[in-house]
């Protein structure tokens, strides 16, 4: 008797398992590629949360083509090697499309992998101009590229009457690209770049560099890399008595920068894609992010959220989960109404209309600069 009961139990358990398997056949697999470990894990997790939030909302509203979205996360660790492994993992787990991409340096080598598999990839945050040339046609950048940011930066410096500029980057794809383009633009406009320097990632002491920058007497310092080391540079510049303008690129757009640099960050300018708090359309997103994750969304959350929504929208418009059809639908996106603004693409699959804003640190908070 006992044995028979056991058999029955095992059979029903197996049946249950099989049914689960069948249910998942109606699932739509979307890959998320962000850094969930390493130095940029905070931003990566924020993007992952936002993408999952968007997927949940879509599922609650009936899914895509009657299918439920399930997400698979590949951790790119903000590292090109890890990213390649993550991309291969996503491709081999048969995802229909991928949303993510935070560090440009790590995103760059993955474009080919997705391209070879024909997998559509919505690049939510990474915005180095190198990504444009490496795009095999299946990737779509929904963040404004470095070119747009360079224009914002240069016009701010001109407005502030800057003549001599110091630029500091970190030697990675994103920050070096932004630094180089700014330098080119600034010198073609007839101004001077008096210092063009590099900070090694993870090195806390930048005092010798600060002394070197100070000795060149620039009117402004432009930091093009990420917030963690940027906060240290700002603090040490101010500590050493540098009182002139400091501006940071969009990778430094984080409340953490203000927290680490403390009062030294007061008055620092930041170029940024529009974050949730400056977007009227993002109210609902911010509210549900807070209820779901007990914290406010970080800088790239809204873009990641839009990325997932755009992917779902494209699949709906394609009317099938055929990858080529989705790529075609993405390409034909016409003023997709995201919370970060209207999304349409140029013939190079970059955002047709820039979404950069200038922020300034006031009272320990980023506020819109007028």
């Amino acid at each position, binding site marked *: 008797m006992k044995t028979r009961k056991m058999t029955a139990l095992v059979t029903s358990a197996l049946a249950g398992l099989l049914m689960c398997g069948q249910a998942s056949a109606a699932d739509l697999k979307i890959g998320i590629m962000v850094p969930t*470990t*390493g*130095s940029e*894990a*905070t931003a990566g*997790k924020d993007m992952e949360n936002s993408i999952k939030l968007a997927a949940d909302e879509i599922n609650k509203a009936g899914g895509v083509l009657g299918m439920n979205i399930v997400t698979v996360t590949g951790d790119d660790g903000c590292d090109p090697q890890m990213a390649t492994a993550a991309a291969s993992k996503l491709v081999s787990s048969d995802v229909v499309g991928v949303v993510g991409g935070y560090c440009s340096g790590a995103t760059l080598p993955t474009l080919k992998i997705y391209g070879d598999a024909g997998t559509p990839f919505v690049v939510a945050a990474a915005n180095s101009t190198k990504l444009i040339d490496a795009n095999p046609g299946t990737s779509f950048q929904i963040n404004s590229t470095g070119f747009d940011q360079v224009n914002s930066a240069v016009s701010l410096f001109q407005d502030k009457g800057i003549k001599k500029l110091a630029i500091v980057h970190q*030697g990675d794809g994103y920050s070096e690209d932004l630094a180089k383009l700014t330098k080119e633009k600034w010198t073609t406009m007839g101004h001077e770049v008096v210092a*063009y*320097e*590099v*900070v*090694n990632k*993870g*090195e*806390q*002491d930048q*005092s*010798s*560099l600060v*002394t*070197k920058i*100070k*000795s060149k*007497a620039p009117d402004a310092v432009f930091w093009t890399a990420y917030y*963690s080391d940027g*906060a*240290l540079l700002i*603090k040490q510049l*101010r*500590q*050493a*008595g540098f009182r002139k303008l400091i501006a940071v690129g969009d990778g430094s757009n984080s409340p*953490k920068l203000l*927290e*680490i*640099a*403390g*009062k*030294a960050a007061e008055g620092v300018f930041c170029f940024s894609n529009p974050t949730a708090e400056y977007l009227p359309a993002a109210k609902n997103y911010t509210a549900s992010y807070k209820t779901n994750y007990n914290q406010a969304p970080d800088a790239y959350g809204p873009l990641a959220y839009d990325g997932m929504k755009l992917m779902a929208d494209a699949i709906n418009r394609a009317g099938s989960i055929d990858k080529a059809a989705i790529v075609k639908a993405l390409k034909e996106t016409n003023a997709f109404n995201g919370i970060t603004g209207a999304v349409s693409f140029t013939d190079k699959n970059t955002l047709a209309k820039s979404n950069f804003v200038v922020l300034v640190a006031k009272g320990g908070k980023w506020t819109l600069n007028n």
Partner: protein
Amino acid sequence: MSTLDIILQQLANGLILGSFYALVALGYTMVYGIIKLLNFAHGDLYMVGGFVGFLILSAISGLLGESWAAIVCSMVLSMLAVGLLGVIIQRVAYRPMLQAPRLSILITALAVSMILSNGVMAITDGEYLAFNTDLSFDGLDFGNVFISYTQLALVVSASLLMVILYLFVNKTLYGKAMRAIAIDQDACKLMGINVNRIIAMTFFIGSSLAAAAGVMAGVYYGSLHFSMGFVIGLKAFTAAVIGGIGSIPGAMLGGLVLGLLEAFGTQIPFVGSEWKDVFSFGLLILLLILKPTGILGKTEIERM
């Protein structure tokens, strides 16, 4: 800024950075001197020290405010806590391996390093912690050369710790025992020295010095991250080798030399600041070729 100003300011920068390197290098050198182990977990103890200091400071700042007294207090407590952690690591991970081949214990040290840094990563969720004490930016201003009081306090406390250590190793009975073990462990056992206890003590001192540097770094730079021990560990190791690994004055000297090299390496004309590490590690390679024992290292067996 005139050239002289730049030189003086870089001298100050180099000495401040060098005192961090020296404090951490001491731990490397002491452990190597006594059991011939390159303790790769040492940089991580620096990191753990910073975090423990942060925890203690946030706990006691209610009582003492974010004052100098609170900072000194949290530094001392963090030194004790991380010193104990060092002893535990030595007891659990290294002591069973002392008779094993040198490579096995080296790999154990790498494992301990990973456990520490990934453990802190798991606890802190990989986040940067802002260690914001909002110390004033005031300091001594000599025209274009500026040294803040915080920087002065750092150099003074680092030097104080090093002087105490020097006196301890050279003037006390325990110090004598440490030096003796460095020469011949078996002979020490025969002479009735409790070798294990002295080794544990060495780990305690080395780890607490790293913790002191970690708390100082937290207070001075204002941020903590689980990966912060990696770069400084590498640099401090370089400093220890430059000075002559196993030699305590060598570690102090090596730290200062490396700090100064980096400060002036940034300033080398025609090349960018990214070359400073090329210069310092280039010197390391040169030194290893010309004088493998380091500046103060001796070719004989005595190493403490």
